[in-house]
């Protein structure tokens, strides 16, 4: 009868375990990463008697809770991880694309450019008006400010991406360390135990987090130890059993983020992270760098075109136009060994042309002087104290430097440096450099237009020219000497190269019609040169280019948003399909609870019956 007692006892033990597993499931119904557990019940195998003194135990002998099983499907877990990687990659990108969109629209560069060019149009109607001249200068400043504001926002964004990526890489490495610990603990834990299940839950939670950080390939050993590879299934291992190869991150000068790893401490190799937040951030960093480069291009082109237009005309004082914009910028940063308390201020004159390689400023205690020289070694260095000027750049030194202290001055040009020169209203070159006068005796309708063309050298440089239409030809003469300088067949609108200018005639001249070209003097109310600004607007298409940057970003953003919606749905499906296996459903657990409770009660009853039977036997013997 001890057999029946044993069976009952085994049942009570097994169902107690089962009930505790159900209790665990219910308690963890809301725990993220918890995988529903089942208890494995096995019938105790019958053991036949082998010894002389032992009773025959050929009957079945109860039940055993032989293990705790996780309701887990590795394929479904992988599907969730892949979906998470894809989604978080897209979302990390969207965040920055959104910021680019906001930056490009709030600063409204193309609107400011439009205002600037419309101010030019307004000035053309009233070339001597102080108000229209002042308005043009205001718009020039507003345009430059918009470029600088956008560039500054993009610079911040670029730095933010790098910081974000760095933090995210740290997170990934931290997760890798945790996973290595779980890997270490798993083989030491009894298989199919509650402790093993808890460790595997931990492992899967870490893998889930990792996959939202970076696209990973996971392979699991029989004992549950995970190997994680990054950059595809054949990529280098991030976690290989107990070994962790930390992912490293680098940012290029333009802010493009890249990753590398050195497997087993070996040679460092670049890794293309294919999913997860890191992939999104790397992509965002490239996009921001592209927008910055595009904007710099526009800023440089705009400054150069406007300065060229200015240079082609004369201002109210009869001088050639001065540069209106500067796109150059320079920043001084202390070199690593610099330890003194010096300060260096950099300022640039309008039209400063800086060496692309930059400059270095160093302090010598012996001479008590700063020396500024070009990084590329060309030109002669400048020495002194206080303020030193080189190539249109002024470095102002303050504080107390130590011997050997040096500062690197990086130079460049682009949107972040775009500034409007402090011109006075009279310094806008509205008038053409040359004024063409036709005597009223001219019988035809021919008119001459003169446009600035730097480098044109078809005529010798003179202070006056005379153009006569005769015999179907245009004859250019020097009015002072009467010498013929050039004879060419008249073609309406065809440009003739002069000295730094080109001239063209339109209309129908008659024989003997002539024109004199004289340099435009002070106080002209001409607006001929403003057409050069308008032409530069057309040929430079600055507004369209800025809009193009915004439009291509917007198109990508719209596409990413749609993609994110789709990926979100895919991830939701993957999660619900995983949870159909691994999730805890309280109704199910309630049923299980009842089932095991009843079985437990029944097993107790078996013990009680066994005791009664045994008692009966004892009673018979009495």
């Amino acid at each position: 009868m001890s057999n029946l007692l044993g069976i009952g006892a085994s049942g009570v033990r097994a169902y107690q375990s089962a009930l505790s597993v159900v209790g665990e499931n219910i308690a963890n119904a809301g725990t993220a990463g918890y995988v529903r557990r089942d208890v494995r019940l096995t019938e105790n195998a019958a053991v036949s008697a082998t010894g002389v003194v032992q009773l025959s135990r050929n009957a079945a002998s109860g039940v055993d809770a032989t293990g705790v099983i996780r309701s887990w499907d590795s394929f479904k877990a992988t599907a969730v991880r892949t979906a998470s990687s894809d989604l978080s990659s897209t979302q990390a990108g969207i965040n920055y694309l959104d910021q680019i969109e906001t930056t490009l629209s709030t600063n409204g560069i193309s609107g400011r450019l439009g205002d600037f060019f419309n101010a030019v149009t307004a000035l053309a109607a009233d070339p001597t008006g102080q108000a229209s001249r002042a308005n043009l200068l205001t718009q020039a400043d507003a345009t430059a400010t918009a470029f600088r504001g956008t560039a500054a926002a993009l610079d911040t964004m670029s730095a933010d991406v790098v910081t974000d990526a760095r933090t995210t890489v740290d997170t990934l490495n931290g997760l890798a360390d945790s996973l290595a610990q779980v890997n270490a603990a798993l083989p030491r834990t009894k298989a199919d135990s509650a402790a093993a299940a808890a460790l595997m839950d931990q492992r899967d939670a870490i893998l889930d987090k990792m996959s939202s950080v970076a696209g990973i390939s996971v392979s699991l050993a029989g004992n549950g130890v995970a190997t994680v590879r990054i950059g595809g299934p054949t990529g280098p291992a991030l976690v290989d059993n107990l070994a962790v190869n930390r992912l490293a991150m680098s940012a290029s000068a333009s802010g493009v983020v890249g990753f590398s790893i050195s497997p087993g401490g070996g040679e460092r190799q670049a890794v293309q992270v294919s999913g997860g937040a890191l992939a999104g951030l790397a992509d965002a960093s490239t996009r921001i760098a592209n927008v910055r480069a595009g904007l710099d291009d526009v800023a440089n082109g705009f400054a150069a075109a406007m300065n060229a237009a200015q240079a082609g005309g004369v201002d109210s004082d009869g001088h050639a136009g001065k540069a209106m914009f500067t796109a150059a910028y320079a920043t001084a940063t202390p070199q690593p060994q610099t330890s003194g308390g010096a300060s260096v201020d950099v300022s640039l004159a309008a039209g400063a042309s800086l060496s692309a390689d930059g400059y270095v400023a160093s302090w010598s205690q012996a001479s008590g002087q700063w020396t500024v020289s070009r990084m590329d070694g060309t030109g002669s260095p400048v020495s002194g104290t206080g303020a030193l000027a080189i190539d249109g750049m002024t470095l102002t030194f303050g504080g107390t430097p130590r011997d050997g202290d040096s500062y690197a001055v990086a130079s460049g040009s682009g949107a972040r440096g775009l500034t409007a020169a402090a011109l006075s209203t009279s310094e806008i070159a509205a008038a053409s450099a040359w004024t063409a006068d036709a005597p009223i005796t001219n019988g035809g309708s021919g008119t001459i237009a003169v446009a600035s063309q730097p480098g044109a050298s078809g005529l010798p440089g003179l202070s006056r020219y005379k153009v006569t239409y005769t015999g179907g030809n245009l004859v250019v003469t020097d009015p002072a000497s009467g010498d013929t300088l050039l004879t060419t067949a008249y073609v309406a609108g065809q440009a003739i190269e002069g000295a730094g200018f080109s001239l063209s005639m339109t209309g129908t001249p008659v024989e003997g019609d002539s024109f004199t070209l004289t340099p435009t003097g002070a106080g002209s109310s001409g607006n001929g040169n403003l057409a050069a600004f308008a032409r530069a607007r057309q040929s430079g298409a600055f507004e369209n280019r800025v809009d193009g940057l915004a439009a291509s970003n917007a198109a990508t953003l719209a596409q990413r948003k749609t993609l994110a919606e789709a990926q979100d749905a895919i991830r939701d499906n993957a999660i619900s399909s995983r949870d159909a296996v691994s999730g805890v459903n309280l109704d199910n657990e309630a049923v299980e609870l009842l089932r095991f409770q009843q079985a437990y009660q029944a097993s107790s009853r078996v013990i009680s019956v066994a005791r009664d039977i045994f008692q009966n036997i004892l009673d018979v013997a009495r």
Partner: protein
Amino acid sequence: MQIGTSQLFSSAYKRMSQLSTEAARYNAEIATGKKVQTASDDTVAFGRLTRLSRTTANEKQYASNMKLAGTLLQQSDDALDAVTTQVQRVRELALRASSDTLSASDRAAISTELDGIVDAIMGIANTTDARGVPLFAGADGQTPFAKGADGKVVFHGQGEAPAIPISATGTVTATSSGARVFGGIRTADGGTSDLFTLVQNLATALNGSDEDARKAAVAQSLTDLNSADESITNARASVGARAARVDLESNQLSDLADAREAERSSLEEADTTESVVNLQKISTILQATQASFSKLSQLSLFNYLS
């Protein structure tokens, strides 16, 4: 298929938050009246809107330039009208001077009046326009006509009057060079002269003592004054033609602006009725989801176990 209890809650949360987001979008459409809020909402429409707003800004400036050009042309016309009146007066005086009955003192009086007329015409020719710039100085900002030491009126202007841009490609010359307006008059002797010289010559001739020479001079003056009148009339006609062109283009511009506004509105403006209906729809669905969720979440087998 089994649904995890926490999954039940999280998916309900997600659905409701999606509905709220959608409701917020319709709400923004109603509040701002715009359906394209950012470039990524509708890339193509946004690009089109950007170009439309740039064209609007440009044309606003062109319209303002046309308005100025119109004013300047009106001022030119007024000035030339005044000049015509003066030229008529000169012709009357010349006719009267051609009479044999006039005494030397009568002629001297006419001559003096003619000198006054020269000053008057010079005053008109030196008129400054709405911008404070002389109307007839060409490309020069300085006062165009001045009397030299010999009393002759000399043109000091330079070049052609600047053309005012009134479209991306078109310009209108709203003012003129005084040399062209007051000069280039074909005289009876086959040469060219200017209005001031003609009047001054007449004034000088009237003071001459030789009667034959005087008569010949007056007769020639009358012929020349006719061509002067014609020349001024031509200048006025040219001003009028330009003013008509400015008017025409200005009307075209405002028609284009209307068409653009219609396009902008169709691209950008939200249909408020549609937005309100959509918002109502989403609100109803959201409320139903909330109600059904609160009912579903109360269902648990544990409630029936005791």
